[in-house]
């Protein structure tokens, strides 16, 4: 979530116009099948972060709109509405605040064939796994994105076109792919770099193991390549999950490993203990040469996050975590807490 604050500013008119356009399109949905009513989903959260003695408060709303148009088209969008409350500069007492309003994606999907979907508009850059899968506030285990997230994803979003789908899917294995091209956009709400790249993953159901690799090439300014790899593993018959990613850029590289284990073994996932989910993340970044634009720390950095999430009834989750970050530029602690409510409902009552 904090990554969002770094990426976007807040001139509101364009995004309000886009949202208005999107909502208007719902009114012209020609025929809505019984199961294809447009939906509104997303999360509402309140987060706190204490970093180096300064506490920041961040109420957030992150709505998702999904609207099918006929049999082959789908409009999807996710926005982030954030109010950031932070301490005033040294010498002044009290807090000040700043609003942020942004679109994570606004895309039109054309389901061309069983194995090909054509995407146009603003979409999440398909590099690694974190950017596409784990950024929603109701999904991520930790408030902070991994330190390497910006490698290969740039601003996080791309503006252009993407081809993606399942190349093959069998009970033994499945392979999926994504390839994209993005143009440069300096619009504050559709901020993107001119780039291209893609990702290929293979999933082995019997091993419950996913392996994948990503490639990206920046096509503006000093052109450079990014390489990535990821591995996810969920052993059978346990609630244990392991996720990991590695990314390499021209001036830096790094990796993260994250594990979580929901204690559903102890009375089921709705029991008092079974609602607990300890989470852990270890990450390192390595600086090869200076590059203030790649988003990674300016010096080699190690960071350890310990978290404990609690799943309350009615789609409410409490996240807590403590992190210790080590770097030659200084060590510091980060304490974070948050509560998130996830919602999901139709835009109107269907027949």
């Amino acid at each position: 979530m904090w990554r969002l604050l770094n990426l976007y500013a807040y001139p509101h008119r364009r995004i309000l116009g886009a949202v208005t356009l999107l909502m208007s399109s719902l009114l012209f949905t020609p025929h809505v099948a019984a199961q294809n009513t447009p939906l509104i989903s997303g999360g509402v959260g309140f987060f706190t972060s204490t970093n180096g003695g300064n506490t920041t408060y961040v109420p957030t709303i992150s709505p998702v709109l999904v609207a099918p148009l006929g049999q082959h088209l789908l409009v999807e969008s996710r926005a982030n509405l954030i109010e950031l409350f932070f301490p005033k500069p040294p010498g002044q007492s009290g807090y000040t605040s700043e609003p942020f309003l942004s679109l994570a994606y606004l895309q039109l999907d054309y389901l061309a064939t069983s194995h090909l979907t054509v995407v146009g508009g603003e979409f999440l850059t398909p590099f690694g796994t974190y950017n596409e899968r784990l950024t929603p506030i109701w999904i991520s285990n930790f408030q902070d994105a991994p330190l390497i997230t910006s490698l290969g994803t740039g601003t996080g979003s791309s503006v252009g076109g993407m081809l993606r789908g399942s190349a093959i899917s069998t009970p033994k294995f499945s392979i999926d792919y994504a390839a994209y091209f993005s143009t440069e956009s300096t619009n504050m709400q559709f901020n993107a770099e001119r780039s291209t790249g893609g990702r290929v993953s293979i999933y082995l159901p019997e091993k419950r193991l996913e392996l994948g690799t990503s490639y990206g090439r920046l096509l503006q300014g000093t052109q450079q390549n990014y390489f990535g790899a990821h591995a996810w593993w969920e052993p059978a018959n346990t609630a244990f999950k392991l996720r990991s990613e590695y990314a390499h850029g021209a001036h830096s590289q790094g990796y993260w490993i994250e594990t979580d284990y929901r204690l559903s073994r102890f009375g089921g996932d709705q029991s008092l203990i079974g609602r607990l989910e300890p989470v852990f993340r270890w990450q390192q970044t390595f600086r090869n040469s200076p590059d203030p634009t790649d988003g990674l720390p300016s010096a080699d950095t190690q960071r350890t996050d310990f978290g404990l999430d609690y799943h309350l009834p009615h789609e409410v989750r409490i996240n807590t975590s403590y992190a210790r970050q080590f770097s030659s530029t200084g060590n510091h602690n980060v304490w974070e807490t948050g509560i998130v409510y996830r919602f999901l409902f139709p835009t109107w009552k269907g027949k």
Partner: protein
Amino acid sequence: MNHWKALASCLLWMTVLPLFAQTSSAPSTPTTSNPKQNKSASTQAVHQSDDGQRVFDQNCSRCHNAPQGFSPHISGTIVRHMRVRASLSKEDEQALLRFLNP
């Protein structure tokens, strides 16, 4: 170097704990608000349901918990959204839809 000891302890704990969880309860599955019970399910229907369960386990629940309930009017929209997000084939999309609407 106390933090290294703490890190090693945590890694050991996170590795060992799943070994004691061989008989963990089945993960919760999503349900529509008023699912229709098919009391005379054929073998084929059971197979299709298993296929949908497989698609759900392999693509949806690996990233997020299942919604605790939702209107059947949006089940098709949810599945199409997942088809794009998780790069599902059309066959997997249909299996998932049958799973959500038994």
